[in-house]
């Protein structure tokens, strides 16, 4: 059985169908790229899986348990963690508190020292352990992204949803970011990542799914997907340089 199954997920905003009957699944420990041009519905799909938006129809199943109709906090509790396309940190809390909340309110419901230990481990994995007591409002952009990832990791999730986590990084940071995600993947974490940076997709994801105008147009090995004529037409345009 697949770990995470998306089954005919559909989201309509009035007359606009942003996600149109998308189905695919992730195996335990897999890292899958979710590609598509701007406005193709990738973030909406992530929002459907994480419960940020209710589905119009369809279902997602984690370990065979249906998540459709559940609230975001219930889905988080079930083991789905995410980062946001526009980074969201809690500026009035310390780094430790920012990260601790998912350990406290997530599936394991840690409290006290156990929650702090989980948060420190997560901060350590992203390289922020030495600044645990600093205020999150004072972080640079890359560190805010790291913090958000640490928060997702402290949930000790079954599935991690990354929404363009690598966007906006300079080349050095990008290389660090890719290495970090690879490390997470190798530790057995199942990851679904929306990404525009082809270098990262090639380096990290053996398999990708591609969306266009709300529909799934490809679900195959990364190399063949990137050579697929309909993917090239939809996503890369005529001057495909990727």
């Amino acid at each position, binding site marked *: 059985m697949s770990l995470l199954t998306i089954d005919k997920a559909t989201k309509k905003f009035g007359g606009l169908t942003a996600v149109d009957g998308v189905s695919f699944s992730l195996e335990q420990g897999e890292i899958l790229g979710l590609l598509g041009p701007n406005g193709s519905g990738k973030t909406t799909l992530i929002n459907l899986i*994480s*419960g*940020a938006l209710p589905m119009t129809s369809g279902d997602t199943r984690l370990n065979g348990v249906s998540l459709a109709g559940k609230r*975001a*906090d219930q889905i988080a*509790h079930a083991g789905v963690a995410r980062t*946001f396309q526009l980074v969201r940190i*809690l500026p009035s809390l310390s780094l430790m508190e920012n990260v601790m*909340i*998912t350990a406290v309110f997530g599936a394991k419901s840690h409290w006290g020292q156990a929650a702090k230990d989980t948060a420190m481990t997560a901060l350590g994995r992203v390289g922020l352990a030495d600044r645990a007591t600093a205020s999150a409002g004072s972080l640079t952009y890359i560190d805010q992204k790291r913090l958000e990832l640490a928060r997702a990791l402290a949930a000790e999730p079954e599935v991690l949803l990354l929404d363009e986590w690598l966007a906006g990084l300079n080349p050095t940071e990008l290389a660090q970011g890719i290495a970090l995600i690879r490390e997470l993947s190798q530790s057995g974490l199942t990851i679904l990542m929306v990404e525009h940076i082809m270098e990262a997709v090639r380096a990290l994801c053996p398999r990708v799914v591609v969306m266009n105008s709300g529909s799934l147009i490809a679900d195959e090995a990364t190399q063949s997907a990137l050579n697929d004529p309909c993917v090239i037409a939809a996503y890369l345009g005529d001057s495909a340089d990727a």
Partner: protein
Amino acid sequence: MKYVIYPVALALLAAVPFVASDYALGLLIGMVTYVTLASAWAMFSGPTHYVSLATVAFYGAGAYVVAMLNEVMAYPMILLITAGVGAAMALVVGLSTLRLAGVYFVIFSFGLAELIRQLITWYEINIYGTLGRYIFVDITARGIYWQMLALAAITIGLTAYINRSRLGLALRVIGDDEVVAAHSGIPLARMKLMAFVLSATILTLAGAIASPRWVYVEPAIVFNPTVSFLTVIMALFGGANRLWGPALGAIPLFLAFEYLSAHFPDVYPIFLGALFIGVVFLFPNGVLAGIEGLRRGKKEETA
């Protein structure tokens, strides 16, 4: 050390009525009442940033429960019922409104006080027959002071406890970003509702405890919106996110308002307005945070 200082301070405060004049005791009761109101208000509104102007809806309801029941049952029983009424009101209001965000919640909470005032007015005129009731409870001013002091201590103690609990952490996350809160596994509605009900129950009890001072009540007197505004401004002045902030804001402002309303009754609202503006501009996070900021600034200068 804390465990010695707080009980001693509380005992000293409780002993004050033995040396204070009647006038001073009256002032003290008012002061402790506003310490309670501001602290209870901040229990919910401080961390979540849901600014509530419904304080007087609960405070007034508490007074009215006493007014309606003081001839038919014993006082301790009335207090129990008051707590139940406050919690039930908060539960209904909370379930229907805590989905509202920002300014909509502010307006709703303000409207709630007005709604309850009108409902009670309607009830009194059409069902009870007269507008206005008397409260005759066999309680001295000292008794009121001690009860209110106890309620203030419970409020601040409970806030301290919440701050260290999961609920406190959840409320602060909700105040910063509800989307992140939900995606971190925090059940938003339940957490907000719990804090709102706790806060409202205390506000309602404060109204019940203070009510014998009025002797005669009618809706226009009891549901005075100034109470809600004063509570907000006191909590913000001291710092709504700090345990002692609301109390430290309530004491000087209560004394200032007493002095101004006694000596300059006509221009007193102008001071109130000016103070509102001043607090928001100068101390957006409260005086305590402001002083800390200044100190830190100086330290950095010398370093």
